[in-house]
């Protein structure tokens, strides 16, 4: 009888952010659907009430079904039978419950049987499900792929594929190959056009494909013979009904064991082109990956939530030296820092989700009518912010989830090392978040542009200018000092004018920016709800010390140092 939405008031806090009014109005095009669909909202309040009620369903299924199944799923895992992936029993039960509850195609338009929710409540659902079982969210969360078909597919494809997702079919995105991991432009799976039939056929191998036996898969393939780089790649849809893909094996993974990770062999598999040729990687996969990275942000935050709850519950119950261990400074400090990181990364998650919501909705509206100059400007602003914040979120939230999982095991002591407590699984599940959908190192490569172009600094200045209560001004003064230091450190590195030197300091600079940005987000959360005060205090104070150390390191280093680090 647990509800993972209603038992966590922080979720409702983020759901009811002031910017939602604008997001909902745009998403619902001023509520035009209300006369066409009996489940469409009639106004803003009605829409918000609907999000809340639907998230209550997600919370109930997560608490009552998905979480209790997690241990069994971790043990049983999926298997291949007659070239089909059979999920663990618990996974199947979870999926059926979510499908029955109509929780597929959450963000898709109503005309394709979707719920037409903004990204924010969808990401919140992913946050909730991830807390229950991080491995399961992968299968359910791949409904993201439908969003890509909705953005780039033609009307006919949308009409044929999207309602199937809403009815409960699963999806996959097949990008990685044995020799194309982080470097996707090396993908070699071949797409050949048969002139006579007017059809595309796929041949080749994909590896590490989550839910590779999905009903509907998006595939990155080389359509332009003789090309070697990303400009020769296109995106295709493959329908499992064609039975032209062999599932060669399932990986035996460290964590998220319920999620089937497949190696696939395509043998003359008929497929449909999505959008235009040659834009597969440079446009569509980039969009797909940005959505997926936001999803991993949600997964990371959900895992952090689970880790924190396990840790604090254990620390309250476990007695040593005659008192609960939570009363010892060494333990309560760990917990307070865990909570601060959890709150900070969740705040960054929803801030980023709001930017994505606004720019994606403006983009969709721009296809229906010409945007007003003011709207166009806003679209560009939010698109830029989404581009800067998505890798920051994915990079930092995933690292935090690993840190929280590590600390949660530590608080459990020897018991945490045993399979008797959920933290052992959470620890293994967390590990992938900083690796897939682009490693933290690759997120830094994307995020450093926010440092070099001044994108983060501009946003920090906006944050600085926002109204806050007098009693919180001290925190802002600290953040202003941190900003000055960050600016100096960034300038110091950029003045050397050597790309390799920037790459060398990139993670430090991105983390410095992250500390300031999350510090402001927590400060503004505290402005709305004083419950965040402790996290703001802990996070900003630690951020200040952390940034100071990083700045000192940068001021003390020179390009000549790189030689000491280059091992061969």
């Amino acid at each position: 009888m647990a509800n993972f939405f209603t038992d966590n008031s922080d979720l409702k806090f983020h759901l009811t952010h002031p910017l939602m009014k604008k997001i909902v109005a745009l998403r619902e095009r001023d509520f035009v659907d209300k006369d066409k669909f009996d489940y469409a909202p009639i106004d803003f309040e009605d829409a918000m009430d609907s999000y809340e009620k639907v998230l209550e369903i997600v919370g109930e299924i997560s608490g009552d079904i998905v979480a209790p199944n997690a241990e069994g799923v971790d043990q049983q895992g999926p298997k291949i039978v007659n070239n089909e992936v059979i999920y663990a029993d618990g996974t199947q039960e979870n999926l059926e419950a979510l499908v029955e509850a109509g929780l597929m195609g959450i963000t898709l338009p109503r005309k394709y049987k979707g719920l037409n929710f903004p990204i924010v409540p969808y990401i919140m659902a992913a946050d909730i499900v991830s807390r229950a079982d991080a491995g399961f969210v992968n299968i359910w969360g791949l409904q993201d792929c439908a969003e890509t078909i909705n953005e780039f597919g033609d009307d006919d494809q949308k009409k044929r594929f999207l309602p199937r997702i809403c009815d409960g079919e699963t999806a996959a995105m097949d990008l990685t190959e044995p020799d194309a991991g982080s470097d996707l432009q090396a993908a070699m799976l071949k797409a050949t056009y048969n002139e006579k039939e007017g059809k595309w056929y796929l041949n080749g191998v994909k590896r590490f494909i989550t839910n590779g036996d999905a009903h509907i898969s998006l595939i990155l393939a080389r359509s332009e013979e003789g090309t070697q780089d990303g400009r020769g790649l296109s995106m295709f849809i493959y329908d499992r009904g064609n039975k032209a893909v062999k599932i060669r094996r399932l990986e035996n993974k460290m964590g998220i064991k319920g999620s089937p990770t497949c190696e696939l062999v395509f043998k003359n598999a008929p497929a449909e082109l999505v959008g235009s040729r040659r834009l597969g990687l440079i446009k569509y996969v980039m969009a797909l990956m940005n959505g997926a990275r936001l999803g991993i942000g949600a997964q990371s935050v959900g895992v952090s939530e689970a880790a924190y709850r396990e840790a604090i519950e254990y620390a309250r119950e476990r007695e040593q030296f005659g008192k609960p261990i939570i009363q010892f400074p060494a333990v309560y400090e760990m917990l307070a820092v865990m909570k601060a990181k959890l709150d900070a990364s969740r705040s960054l998650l929803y801030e980023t989700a709001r930017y994505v919501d606004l720019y994606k909705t403006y983009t969709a509206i721009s296809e229906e009518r010409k945007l007003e100059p003011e709207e166009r400007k806003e679209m560009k602003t939010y698109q830029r912010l989404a581009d800067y914040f998505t890798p920051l979120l994915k990079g930092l939230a995933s690292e935090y989830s690993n840190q929280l999982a590590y600390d949660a095991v530590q608080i459990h002591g020897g018991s945490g090392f045993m399979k008797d407590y959920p933290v052992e699984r959470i620890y293994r599940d967390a590990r992938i978040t900083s690796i897939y959908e682009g490693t933290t190192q690759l997120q830094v490569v994307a995020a450093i542009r926010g440092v070099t172009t001044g994108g983060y600094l501009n946003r920090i200045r906006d944050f600085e200018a926002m109204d806050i209560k007098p009693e919180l001004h001290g925190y802002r003064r600290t953040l202003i000092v941190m900003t000055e230091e960050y600016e100096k450190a960034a300038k110091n590195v950029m003045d050397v004018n050597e790309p390799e030197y920037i790459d060398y300091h990139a993670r430090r600079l991105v983390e410095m920016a992250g500390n300031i940005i999350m510090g402001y987000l927590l400060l503004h959360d505290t402005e709305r709800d004083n419950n965040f005060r402790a996290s703001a205090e802990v996070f900003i104070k630690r951020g200040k010390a952390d940034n100071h150390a990083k700045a000192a390191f940068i001021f003390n280093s020179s390009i000549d140092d790189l030689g000491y680090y280059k091992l061969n």
Partner: protein
Amino acid sequence: MGLNIIVLAKQVPDTRNVGKDAMKADGTVNRAALSAIFNPEDLNALEQALSLKSRYKDSEVTILTMGPGRAADIIREGFYRGADKGYLLTDRAFAGSDTLATSYAISRAIMKMKKVDLIIAGRQAIDGDTAQVGPQVAEKLGLPQVTYAEEVLSAEKNKIVVKRRLERGVETVEAPLPAVITVNSSAPACRPRNAKLVMKFKHAKTITERQNQSEDYIDLTADRPYLNIEEWSVNDIDADTEWLGLSGSPTKVKKIENVVFQAKEAKLLSATDKEMDELMKELIANHTIG
């Protein structure tokens, strides 16, 4: 051919989750301290009805509940899971009804409805644990009854086939339609609320609820008649008030005692994972642990 199915459901205090203040000093249930929920076995009954609806085209599921105004929640919860219609029996005259008076009111209401093929109820409500209302309704309507049902296997050619879960085994029986079935908690759990149905029916209200709404409430029932939850009083079901409420209830509470459980009961388990698992589930379900 579609079936017209009535589900009898009751709103009950959540006695599975009792705190210190669950009972008042006089030994009666402190309803204010307990949250009001859909009686668990009535949810099992609803699932049986919804499952029949998906198997037999053009079937219709109607929720019938008796209680105070807030029991309209039960009908909305039914809509959220796929029920088509709902009736709330509510009247001062019903207050204090025991099982005899309740089954009288319910059977009068069912007589008011057009063709009914099947009436499905939970075995018993967790507040009274009598298991009498279902069978009494069957008797009053002169219908066959199948109790302890776990699954309705089929409902064709004016006949139902039902699997019953009894203390020492399973029994499969047939009965002619129309009939009354009461369902055990061992039956499949009810499906979750559906997102679209929640959004569609969350504005469903009884007339009393609409009248009590604040000024800024937007009433949509004119355009969407399905949002009206029928409210029936004594007059609507042609009932004799003598047979209702306290006057219609021969059950009198003689004495109420506070019973403190002592650790006397023992249960023998074999050392298998299955039995351990079942024990854990039982302890979690009755809130002994967790």
